[in-house]
């Protein structure tokens, strides 16, 4: 038996120039990637007219990259070894020929509807970290964001193909890939993003969530999610009713009379959960006595937990967003899809880094692993492909590629279903 020792794969940004070539030659899931962006080949030139942008070594940024085939994409990426890859829109012409197009004719036509949630935007309500840092204490904010937004995108908007991706450092992205989503106008994207926004206001605004009667079903659903996580995340994890400083911040969001009373009560009551109980009760009392809706306990929960999205990212059809399976240069982590079935167990610190998976490549084969079956008909190229396909499977990247595969399979099934529906309507057989 071979005892396997996993060397500690510590990531160092300086080693990227060595790791990237390996990553792009043997690990990056090109065939799945192409399958995704080709969308079944239903629309002509959909892949060919897609813009990519690369950030190369020394921060050189190149836009309007486009490719005719999967093979061309592979070759270029293996040649350039980009530090970062962004995906843009599908244009009216090939982006790499945009200079030859008559001015005004080169237009962004379609793109996935995207969302970007950044932990930095929560700095005013998380006490454990700030800026680009994240930790297990504040990560639940992302979990809550995914649950709330995914539900809304599916149940309210009817979108069925949402790919949630860990950005690699401090946040998450969502790619809504439905055909209807890709065709949305700027105004429509903006409307969707506004519908999903509840936390408004910057540095100067203290009370960032305002609820009035009637409480829209969307808000109710979102509150249900927040309530599920609130005790563990906010009261215990973030301790928002623990220290005086934190408690004062919370009390800044309740009406004066309630605040006065709670301050008195909090002199003796120190337990955060019971403190919260008192606050909630007072809100409920107010609602039964005063005619106007007082929802301050709900407002507090939302202000501390509700997803904060950047509308500008979602609005633009031509906006470029970091690609799934791209490497994050600062952390080395791969931008991997998140499994919503295991959402509560997702740990960003367990996401493989490029150094880890490159090391895993070098590991000797385990006993019991599939023997290399030589097929006499197979040529070198195909053998190479097969080996490559198996390569990522030997690394921690495997399960994420599998997840991506399942996502793509769902979309393919959907497309087929649509075609059948359409041909039924037209009575084509």
């Amino acid at each position, binding site marked *: 038996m071979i005892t396997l020792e996993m060397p500690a794969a510590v990531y160092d940004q300086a080693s990227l120039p060595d790791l990237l070539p390996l990553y792009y030659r043997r690990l990056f899931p090109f065939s799945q990637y192409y399958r995704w962006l080709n969308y079944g080949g239903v629309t002509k030139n959909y892949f060919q007219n897609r813009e990519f942008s690369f950030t190369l070594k020394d921060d050189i940024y190149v836009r309007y990259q486009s490719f005719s085939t999967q093979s061309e994409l592979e070759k270029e990426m293996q040649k350039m070894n980009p530090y970062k890859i962004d995906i843009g829109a599908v244009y009216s012409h090939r982006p790499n020929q945009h200079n030859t197009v008559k001015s005004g004719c080169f237009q962004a036509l379609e793109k996935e509807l995207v969302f970007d949630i950044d932990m930095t935007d929560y700095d005013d309500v998380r006490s454990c970290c700030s800026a680009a840092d994240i930790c297990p204490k504040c990560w639940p904010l992302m979990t809550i964001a995914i649950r709330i937004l995914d539900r809304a995108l599916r149940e309210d908007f*009817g979108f069925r193909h949402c790919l949630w991706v860990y950005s690699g450092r401090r946040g998450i992205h969502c790619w809504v890939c439905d055909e209807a989503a890709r065709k949305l106008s700027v105004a429509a994207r903006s409307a969707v993003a506004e519908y999903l926004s509840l936390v408004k206001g910057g540095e100067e605004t203290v009370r960032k969530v305002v609820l009035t009667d009637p409480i829209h*079903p*969307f808000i109710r659903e979102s509150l249900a999610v927040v309530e599920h996580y609130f005790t563990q995340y906010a009261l215990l994890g973030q301790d928002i009713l623990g220290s005086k400083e934190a408690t004062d911040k919370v009390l800044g969001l309740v009406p004066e009379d309630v605040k006065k009373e709670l301050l008195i009560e909090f002199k003796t009551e120190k337990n955060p959960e019971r403190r919260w109980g008192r606050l909630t009760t007072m809100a409920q009392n107010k609602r039964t006595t005063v005619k106007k809706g007082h929802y301050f306990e709900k407002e507090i929960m939302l202000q501390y937990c509700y997803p904060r999205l950047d509308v500008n990212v979602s609005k633009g059809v031509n906006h470029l967003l970091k690609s799934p399976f791209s490497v994050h240069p600062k952390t080395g982590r791969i931008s991997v899809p998140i499994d919503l079935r295991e959402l509560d167990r997702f740990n960003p610190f367990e996401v493989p880094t490029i150094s880890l998976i490159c090391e895993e490549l070098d590991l000797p084969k385990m006993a019991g692993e599939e023997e290399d079956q030589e097929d006499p008909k197979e040529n070198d190229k195909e053998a190479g492909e097969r080996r490559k396909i198996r390569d990522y499977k030997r690394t921690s990247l495997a399960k994420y590629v599998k997840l991506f595969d399942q996502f793509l399979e769902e979309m393919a099934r959907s497309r087929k279903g649509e075609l059948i529906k359409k041909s039924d309507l037209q009575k084509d057989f």
Partner: protein
Amino acid sequence: MQFGNRRKKLIVNAQTEQLYGHCLQFYSQSPTENISLSEFETFAVERLKLLKTVENLGVSYVKTSEQYTKKLDTEFSSLNFPFRSEKSSSGPSEYEKRRKDHISHFILRLAYCQTEDLRRWFIQQEIDLFRYRFNCLNSKSKREFLHLNNLRYDTVSVMEKTNLAEKLINSSFAVSGITVEDQDFYKVPFQDALDLVRTRKVYLKEGFVYVPHMEIVTIVLNDFRTRLSKALALTARSLPAVQSDERLQPLLNHLSHAYVGQDYSIQKSIGKISLDQIETLSAKSYPLCMRQLHRALRESHHLRHGGRMQYGLFLKGVGLTLDQALQFWRSEFVKGKVDADKFDKAYAYSIRHMFGKEGKRTDYTPYSCMKVILSNPPSQGDHHGCPFRHTDPELLKQKLQSYKVSPGGMSLMLSLVVFYFSYQTKCFCSVQIEDSGFSLNHPNQYFLESQKLLGGPGAVAGGKGDVKREDIATPKPSNVARKNTLVSSLRNRHQVTGPQLAASLTCTLKTPVSTSTVLPLSNVF
């Protein structure tokens, strides 16, 4: 489709049924029949009058208020546009009205598609008009309209409505339990109801927005706006071909500049101006053209016919009575070469004529700016016309500089700048100072506005509040507040001084020519 003599029996076939089967339409199909040029012009001008009314009322009243509706109702019937569907929708007169509605809309598209400003104005008024007409329909007619226009708004089944009742009520302040029970709800794709989605004012499920019948107009309006916007862009592209028809070009130009508003002939302030105020008023509140005429009159104690008409009618609009006018002109003329007798014989008659006391007794209305500019250009020895159109720029510059402007008149100078700047862009009707909803296209309007700003005697004093607003179409805030917004908005919008502007003016306008022959609309649209 050919319609020769109106008295022939109407051929109502499938096509007309589709086009004119409902009193309201989306104007998606262009007209193809032949009409006479005069009908072409009449239709267009009348629709323009209607849209101007819509604009003016929209500034003065809340668009869904009773007063608004009543006043618009009146204008509708007087201009013979298709009215509420309760009236009998059969017979030539209703049919003729719908035909007029249809054709006139398309003609105005031609006139208003060319610039961003014109398009915006046109779309805004057409939308307001549509909203008003849609709201006038009864429930059944509304449904018919949606059905006729293939608006894919499915009705929510009673069962689904009941299941979703609580959610529907909680989605909108305006929806109660009774609403859910009584009204139909429609499922609209969310992309067609973005305003409702953006503000979360409606229930959204699986990509569909659940809209109560009473709100369906918002959705329909969005649809209408999108269609019209696209159509105007298309029209603009095909316009050069249309404009090459010589009969149409002057007509269309005339239309987008036509003044069809307040004619200032009925003045509440009649008799409130005394003759000795005229001198001060001329310095403070006269637009440049009238100031010029007044000065010329004072200096040479004479004005030729064109000048007498333009200035004389202006004075009538300002509020002079016939006797005052006679006194005014006589006193000035006798200082010159004309003695009192000659005046009475030669000139008094024409003044009385102006006031409708002679000849066919037409009560002539003061000239609008367009009229001043387009008709009767001044020649040697004349002082009438529009200085910005008819004066050499250098000379104009000197004039502007020489007219000393008092502190109170500063705002007027600025408004002059605005007024003439808009003339530069040839967009008379759409001169808007957005903050205050102010629109300038008539010398008497200029006078009244300036008097208001200065709180002078020429302002329409007291009177019934409503009536006053209706005449002037100015916004509701008090004089002081309005003065501030007017002046500050003028300052903000136009930093060009009169002289600077004068220096850069070039204007060419063709005089309209019309013939009366038949026009095949299929060639036009």
